[in-house]
């Protein structure tokens, strides 16, 4: 389960807090405190994920990222940044990062994104049966049909996308901002509980008439689909 993660972060306090947290999750973490060192380590070792601070001494995060992508190193990169505007986020993603997390963030948020990125890598490596199953729930991404215990569920297109994203991250916490970014492709912070309303509608359709809950609320973090 444990993966190799490279953490490039110049702020010692943040770095040690994140390294400790990730180690507790079972990952092995290698650290670099400036961009040049980070680029050197990233090109040298084989990592499953690189967590890259955007503002780094010597060589900034986006330059490191561009250099990595230019060298065809396709390791997933999660950018951390205090640059919070929508334009900054888009710029970070356009540079070839796989995710962009704005500081300050909770460790739960970071962990959820790390797991999603690692999971995506797994899926990429192993394209198994195209059907997704979570307990008695069966999802067919080709026909976009969903059955629970053989009974077809009637989902709206967006509800289907939401469920598919949950299913691809089965057993892992998914945060509200991850949903907004991945399912809707929006990078702003809505001032209302608009995401929660969608999730609770989906939950109603998934669980109505069934005893066993599938879509769980994880307090202080987000949601999780698990049998």
């Amino acid at each position, binding site marked *: 389960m444990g993966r190799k993660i490279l953490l490039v972060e110049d702020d010692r306090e943040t770095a040690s807090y994140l390294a400790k947290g990730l180690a507790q999750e079972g990952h092995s973490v290698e650290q670099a405190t400036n961009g040049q060192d980070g680029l050197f380590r990233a090109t040298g070792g084989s990592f499953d994920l690189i967590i890259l601070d955007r503002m780094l001494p010597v060589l900034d995060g986006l330059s490191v990222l561009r250099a990595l992508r230019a060298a065809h190193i396709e390791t997933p990169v999660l950018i951390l940044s205090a640059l919070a505007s*929508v334009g900054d986020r888009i710029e970070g993603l356009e540079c070839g990062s796989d995710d962009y997390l704005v500081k300050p963030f909770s460790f739960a948020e970071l962990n959820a994104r790390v797991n999603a990125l690692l999971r995506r890598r797994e899926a990429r490596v192993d394209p198994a049966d195209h059907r997704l199953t979570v307990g008695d729930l069966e999802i067919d991404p080709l026909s976009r049909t969903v059955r629970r215990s053989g009974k077809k569920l009637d989902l709206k297109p*967006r509800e289907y996308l939401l469920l598919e994203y949950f299913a691809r991250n089965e057993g892992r916490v998914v945060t509200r901002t991850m949903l907004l970014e991945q399912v*809707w492709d929006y990078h*702003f912070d809505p*001032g209302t509980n*608009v995401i929660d309303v969608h999730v609770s509608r989906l939950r109603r359709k998934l669980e109505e008439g069934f005893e066993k809950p599938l879509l769980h609320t994880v307090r202080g973090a987000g949601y999780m689909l698990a049998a």
Partner: protein
Amino acid sequence: MPTTLRIALLAGLLALLSNLAVIGFIYVRTHDEAVASLHRQVTEQSQVLTDVYRTGGKAALDKAIGDTLDYADTQTAVALIAADGRQIEGNLAQAPAVQSMQVGYHNAVIRLRGQPSPHQAQIVFSRLSGGEWLVSGRLVGEGLAFRATLERSLLLSLVVAGLLGLLCGVVLAHYVSRRIGNIAAVANRISARDLSQRVPLSGAGDSFDRLGLQINAMLDRISALMEELRLLTDSLAHDLRSPATRLRAAAHAAAESSDPAEQEELLGSVVRNADALIRILTTVLEISRSEALTGRKQFAWFDAGELAAELAEMYDPLADERGASLKFDRPGRPVPLFGHRQLLAQAVSNLLENAIRYGSDGGEIDVRVSPGEKQIRIEVADRGPGIPLDRRTEALRRFGRLDSSRSDEGAGLGLALVQSIAHLHDGELQLADNEPGLLTAIKLPVHPPQEAR
């Protein structure tokens, strides 16, 4: 004041030079005239006398010279000189030596009979067929005298012109420096932190008034911006205070509490208030980014109808939950728009959230996208209480929350952000009456800002 002096001297010098040019012209012309007319007279006289000799012979010429001398003025010089150098007839005091005479027009110095001293003269020597010499000419004394007078008066007028020019220069410099001095004085007082000063206008509508008007307009704009900035800083400080205070209180209480359940509850409140702080800061940042027009390089073409449809679908369940129905009629054709998709999505979502927050009681929220010739309108209309006409400007201002006692999470930045995003697109946000309710419209030009393309 060296500048005034410089202007005065420059004006004086210019007046002097232009007068010099005019006077020089007059001088040269008059001089040439005088010389030409003398030359004509002398040639004519000599011509007439040689003609008389040719037709009437020596006797007729003798008589003609006599007549000429009888009627001539004192400038006339005429003489018939025999081949041996003797003066047969004429008024020369002494005949010139025969060997020194050459046929043609000459400048010479001669003395007339009865005159005390020799004079400059223009003379024509002609050799007659009988071997005699005809000397005919005029003294140039008169011309010289005239030239001297002319030179004196021209010189005098030059001095007068120079002095007048200098005087004009002083007056002009004084006028200019007084007008500029007014502006400079205002600038000085403004530097000393009194932005209320304005440049006084003469009312003449001249260039100085136009300059003053422009400076005053600039000052008005600066004052408005400074006032806005001051208000913004005040509001930001004020609005950050409440969540910061709540956060501190919750953190403090959590530290004091020994009950784990209560502690968890309080720490949740800490996180919520911290999030509220972060949201305010992020929004303020987003607004200033948009107002500074950064982000135009991320503009791209997309379908505004599709965007609105997506957002309407996104907010439909929320509206439904709050007891309102959200309606959107997607235009039959795509509405191509060149802009920042993410920021416009945020703008429309802000309008939708506002409509749901304040207008849900009305029961109906309408979303419309209307493509026009020159602009695209994205409208969100609710049936809530609306915003009275006189408070709409206030509503668009940052932190311009209409009811300051309202304690919901909207920090009064929503509409300000929408407006700044509209500005980024060279568009605007319009608030209107939905009769009843509020109609908000983002108006965007079909043709995108030039520098974004």
